């Protein structure tokens, strides 16, 4: 599977975003400051927003899905069970996995935003689309849920997963890092080489690299391994 961007550009007044590159199978992390254009690029990659110029081509991608920062936008079911069914999923395992089985008769909007996010992300991951674009998947989740989500998304062995985030602490194991800076999408390359190219890398990663302990990846386990390396 391949998602190619050739000369893609979007312009809004003084603001613009240019993107070029190829997303292949694996988990990609796209980082960037707030307002840098992450959500706009996410929409374009998911085929929901046409670029002003350039082309986005899909090869071997049969199905695509995007999740938005606010999970409310995805709701169409009358209760949690109904919501799972609208995703064509069996509610029992999904609600059990998300610790929401006791609230199955509640309307999704009666959940806290964190709980709702957990449910929507679980449904989305379970659908196993070829292309999965996750816009700020960590927002509203607590640390434990962020780690749980990282473990779940790391388990996605097939397809292209693109995570857009400004998260600084919790990450899954990723294949490639991308960075939006000054209106341009930069490909920082594959891990672990990409870590030294990553301008917005969290301080802990920069310190580990400075001490000659470049982690293999940047999940919590990888960082711990690098920090404790002798």
């Amino acid at each position, binding site marked *: 599977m391949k998602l190619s961007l050739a000369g893609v550009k979007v312009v809004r007044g003084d603001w613009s975003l240019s993107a070029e590159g190829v997303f292949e199978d694996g988990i990609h992390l796209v980082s960037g400051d707030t307002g840098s254009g992450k959500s706009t690029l996410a*929409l374009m990659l*998911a085929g*929901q927003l046409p670029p002003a110029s350039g082309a986005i081509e899909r090869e071997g991608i049969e199905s*695509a*899905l*995007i999740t*938005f920062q*606010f999970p*409310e*936008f*995805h*709701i*169409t*079911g009358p209760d949690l069970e109904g919501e799972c069914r*609208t*995703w064509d999923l069996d509610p029992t395992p999904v609600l059990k996995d998300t610790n929401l089985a006791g609230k199955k008769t509640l309307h999704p*909007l009666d959940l806290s935003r964190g709980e709702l996010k957990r449910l929507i992300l679980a449904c989305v991951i379970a659908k196993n689309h070829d292309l999965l674009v996750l816009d700020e998947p960590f927002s509203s989740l607590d640390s434990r849920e962020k780690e749980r989500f990282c473990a779940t998304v790391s388990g996605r062995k097939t397809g292209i997963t693109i995570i857009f985030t400004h998260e600084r602490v919790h990450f899954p194991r990723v294949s490639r890092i991308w960075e939006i800076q000054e209106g341009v999408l930069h490909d920082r390359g594959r891990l672990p080489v990409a870590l030294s190219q990553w301008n917005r890398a969290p301080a802990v990663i920069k310190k580990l690299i400075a001490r000659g302990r470049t982690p293999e990846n940047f999940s919590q386990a990888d960082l711990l391994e690098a920090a404790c390396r002798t």
Partner: protein
Amino acid sequence: MQDIRLRAGAAALLSLAAFTSVTGAAVVFIWWLLFSRPVQVLGKLRIVIPALILVGFFGLVLELTGGGGISYSLRMTVSMTVIILIGAWVYTGYRQGDFLRLGTWLLGNKTGFDLGMVAETGMQSLDLMVSDLSRIQQAQELKGTSRGIRSLVPAGSILIHGALRRAEETAELMAVRGYSCGGSYCPVFNTTVRDLVAGSAAICMGIIAFVPVSEFFILYH
């Protein structure tokens, strides 16, 4: 129209004129075509088109369920359609601060300021609801939910829930910052020649709508 005083006054007068009779609705529609830049209005606010379809639908339902007869249903449908078009014109011409300026100019720094601020937050909320609706439609499309009445119910409840949540958060923030009532604001208005022409035309349309045609012309019986 850049001057909110003229825009709000014209909108009130034209809405009333459109509601009064089919003749009123017709002359107001002509005014809308001439002064509202209709292509821009419909281009910016595409949601107007489904709203117009909905008005037509309810007009038909009213007729089929034995409402007030064909003429009544037709009049209501035409009037409501034109009123929606006037509303769309007001909405698309809105610039941040318009209603705060109008409120304080009209009713002063206490009641006027409060009402203006309520209208401002309402308009901002409406803006957010429009962008939220676009995201909801995208999410529903990706989920395979077909567009129609069944998709409107969850979308509507999400929009209302979101608007209420934002209103509550805004109210809490304002209370925390010490807001109780009123404020101080010196409104400045920009009145163009086009504003004056459109405003005068709106008054003419209002007169035509409210005063019988026979008052102007000698009609042969």
